[in-house]
């Protein structure tokens, strides 16, 4: 199937819409990363198996789809019946037959599988009525959850490649750039650089060829928006890239995908092959005289390769070491040629901007940060998952209205954004409107969109130590401030967590941080001290508790805590005894257990398995 003109594309679109409308009812089985980890594949296979055997009027196995991440991962595996939006949560293999018989063959809703609103205790039938979805606005994630993971025909039915046809046939490259500029789109990879400006700079450099790269490295631990897009709707990224290439005159592009995301690698490649087969990639696309093709490049599991200059080195088959910032990628990028590098989510927004207009996009969000932003809302939050909200939504709305508040009703302590380059914000900042600038002012960062909620059982010293240790591991070692500075900063954080530090060490850490920020070569080092700086800014008391009182108030830092079994609560179930790797726990069945403090290595396994809350941390 080769599409040669825009008219043929429109004709095909009609066919594709007819195909998707063939069956009035559709069953969407979410096969996003969260649901898969909970056994969604087995549920989906069971659906296929049973549907192949059963005969149901007006329904067929073709109307069952394996979709990308629907978002509400905490409740997975999810099964949605469209167009009624009936929303089944935590579906197991055993529920499949009942769903087929009751909700597909008949029109009944299975109460047991519905979501229960924790505030009202009422069952909710449609997903759009659930707070988690009601407060969202989806642009980058528009198709995910509504179609088979990567199927070009379904993408076309959902207005896919319409923006491409419009760009190639009705707009000049400069018009495309102008439209993106008008939209105010800022890069979703973290730094928030205006995308239109980047394209304009690259387009006017007279040194050929030009390249377009999509950054799908998503190295921030705790973030999975880009994964969801690459797996669930890769065509939107590819369409965005082709439009970008047309705008800047590039004929070759790369998608750089983390190899920890095997399904994303497969789906992106599949989507590229489909697009090529349909003539949407390759020579003379839609008879416009414009040629473009894309290759996939797999990352090797190095966080620093998310940085643009390091990424380009990696695409070239080399060690991913960044270079100094003053050499700009739009001038000298991949193979030293002008290159536009954008994040996955940035590209996914582009087709919508072209279709609906830059002005429309600029009307969403805040004046300086337009549009929406996808976040992975995770950690100690009740309704975690993949969300997308207009810029300017407050942290409180995100965590409490969408996220349903803190897990087990514990007190909120902090929210971490921006990954290892970002910081932790306390409850006094909950009413902050989330956009690029407010977060940076508050000492954190938008980052790529990981949002990790922490409760009173999370220790900020431990969090700072965690990120520093991550960065020490991931620092490429090219520049001294980052390689040695972060190392020392980490050593001091360890000293605090072990009760060996003095208050002067805190001053040292602050000075050292300043030096690292000024002296490092790339963003990894420059923003590396942020997790420390933001926690010391908002949680100095907690640091002092470790230093002065030798206590970890959250009960996390091993050297400063002890575990004890409370006599009045222990029923001698032996659960703790059997997981204790140090054999530090003694006691007979039905009798009180005791922890031998000399043997205990404070691993916390006993605390994790005790179902009677009989283990106390002091």
């Amino acid at each position, binding site marked *: 199937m080769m599409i040669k003109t825009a008219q043929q594309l429109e004709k095909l679109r009609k066919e594709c819409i007819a195909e998707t409308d063939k069956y009035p009812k559709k069953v969407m089985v979410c096969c996003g990363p969260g649901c898969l980890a909970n056994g969604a594949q087995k549920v989906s296979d069971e659906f296929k198996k049973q549907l192949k055997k059963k005969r149901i009027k007006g329904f067929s196995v073709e109307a069952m789809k394996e979709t990308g991440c629907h978002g509400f991962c905490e409740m997975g595996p999810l099964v949605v019946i469209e167009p009624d939006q009936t929303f089944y949560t935590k579906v197991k293999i055993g529920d499949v037959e009942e769903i087929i018989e009751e909700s597909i063959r008949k029109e009944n809703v299975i109460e047991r599988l519905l979501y229960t609103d924790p505030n009202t205790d009422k069952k909710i039938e449609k997903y759009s009525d659930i707070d988690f979805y009601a407060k969202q606005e989806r642009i980058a994630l528009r198709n995910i959850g509504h179609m088979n993971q990567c199927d070009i025909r379904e993408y076309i039915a959902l207005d896919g490649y319409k923006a491409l046809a419009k760009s190639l046939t009705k707009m000049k490259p400069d018009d495309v750039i102008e439209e993106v500029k008008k939209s105010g789109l800022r890069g979703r990879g973290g730094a928030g650089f205006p995308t239109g400006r980047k394209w304009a700079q690259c387009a006017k450099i007279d040194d050929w060829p030009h390249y377009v790269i999509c950054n799908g490295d998503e190295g921030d631990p705790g973030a999975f928006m880009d994964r969801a897009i690459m797996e669930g709707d890769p065509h939107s990224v590819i369409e965005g890239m082709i439009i970008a290439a047309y705008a800047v005159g590039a004929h070759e592009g790369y998608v750089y995908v983390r190899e920890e995301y095997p399904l994303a690698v497969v789906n992106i490649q599949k989507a590229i092959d489909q697009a090529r087969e349909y003539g949407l990639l390759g020579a003379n696309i839609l008879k416009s005289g414009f040629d473009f093709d894309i290759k996939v*490049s797999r990352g090797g599991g190095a*966080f620093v390769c998310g940085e643009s200059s390091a990424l380009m080195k990696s695409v070239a*088959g080399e060690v991913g070491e960044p270079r100094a910032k003053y050499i700009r990628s739009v001038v000298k990028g991949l193979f030293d040629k002008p290159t536009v590098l954008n994040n996955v989510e940035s590209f996914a927004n582009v087709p919508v901007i072209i279709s609906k207009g830059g002005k429309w996009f600029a009307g969403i969000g805040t004046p300086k940060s337009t549009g929406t932003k996808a976040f*992975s809302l995770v950690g100690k939050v009740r309704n975690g998952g993949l969300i997308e909200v207009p810029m300017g939504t407050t942290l409180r709305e995100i965590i409490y209205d969408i996220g349903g508040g803190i897990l087990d009703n514990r007190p909120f302590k902090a929210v971490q954004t921006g990954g290892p380059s970002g910081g932790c914000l306390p409850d006094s900042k909950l009413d902050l409107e989330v956009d690029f600038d407010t977060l940076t002012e508050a000492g954190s960062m938008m980052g790529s969109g990981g949002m990790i909620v922490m409760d009173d059982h999370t220790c900020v010293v431990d*969090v700072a130590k965690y990120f520093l240790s991550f960065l020490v591991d991931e620092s490429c070692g090219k520049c001294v401030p980052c390689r040695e500075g972060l190392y020392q900063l980490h050593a001091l954080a360890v000293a605090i967590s072990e009760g060996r530090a003095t208050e002067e060490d805190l001053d040292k850490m602050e000075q050292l941080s300043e030096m690292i920020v000024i002296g490092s070569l790339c963003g990894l080092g420059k923003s590396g001290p942020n997790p420390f700086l933001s926690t010391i800014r908002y949680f100095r008391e907690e640091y002092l508790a470790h230093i002065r009182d030798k206590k970890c108030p959250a009960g996390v830092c091993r050297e400063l805590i002890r575990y004890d079994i409370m006599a009045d609560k222990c029923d001698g179930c032996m659960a703790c005894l059997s997981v204790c790797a140090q054999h530090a726990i003694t006691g007979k069945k039905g009798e009180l257990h005791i922890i031998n403090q000399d043997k205990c290595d404070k*691993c916390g396994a006993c605390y*994790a398995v005790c179902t009677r809350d009989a283990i106390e941390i002091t």
Partner: protein
Amino acid sequence: MKHDFSKLQEIFDKYPKTPQSLISVLQDIHKEYRYLPCHALEETARVLDVPLSKVFSVSTFYNAFSLTPRGERVIRVCTGTTCHIRGANQILHQLEELLNIKAGETTEDLKFTIEVVACVGACSMAPVVIVNDEFRGGVKVSDAKRLTK
């Protein structure tokens, strides 16, 4: 260890024989042998015309590569931020104690390898453990025993 190196040629033939293919070739070799055998690195250097030192530098730079053989069952514990605050370390600790190896090591009988990975993008299911490519969410300390059986 003895390996059948006849597969190498197939891998080389998939890519243009230029230095740019280095990482892709190493990834495929790693997939085939579950680590990067010394002989394969030498062959790669020769075929792609890259200095062996550079092949070595790339193989040690990227976390995805291992220069020592890995076990039949690779248990990867996610220690990304979300998994970390939801207790990944306790699971890791338990596995290390049970198998008597540290993260990054392989048991002598080549049955098990423990590795850590910083976020696999399934954070809502934290803590996550991946056993040879199969994701397990909401893992508990008490599950460790089963993972090592």
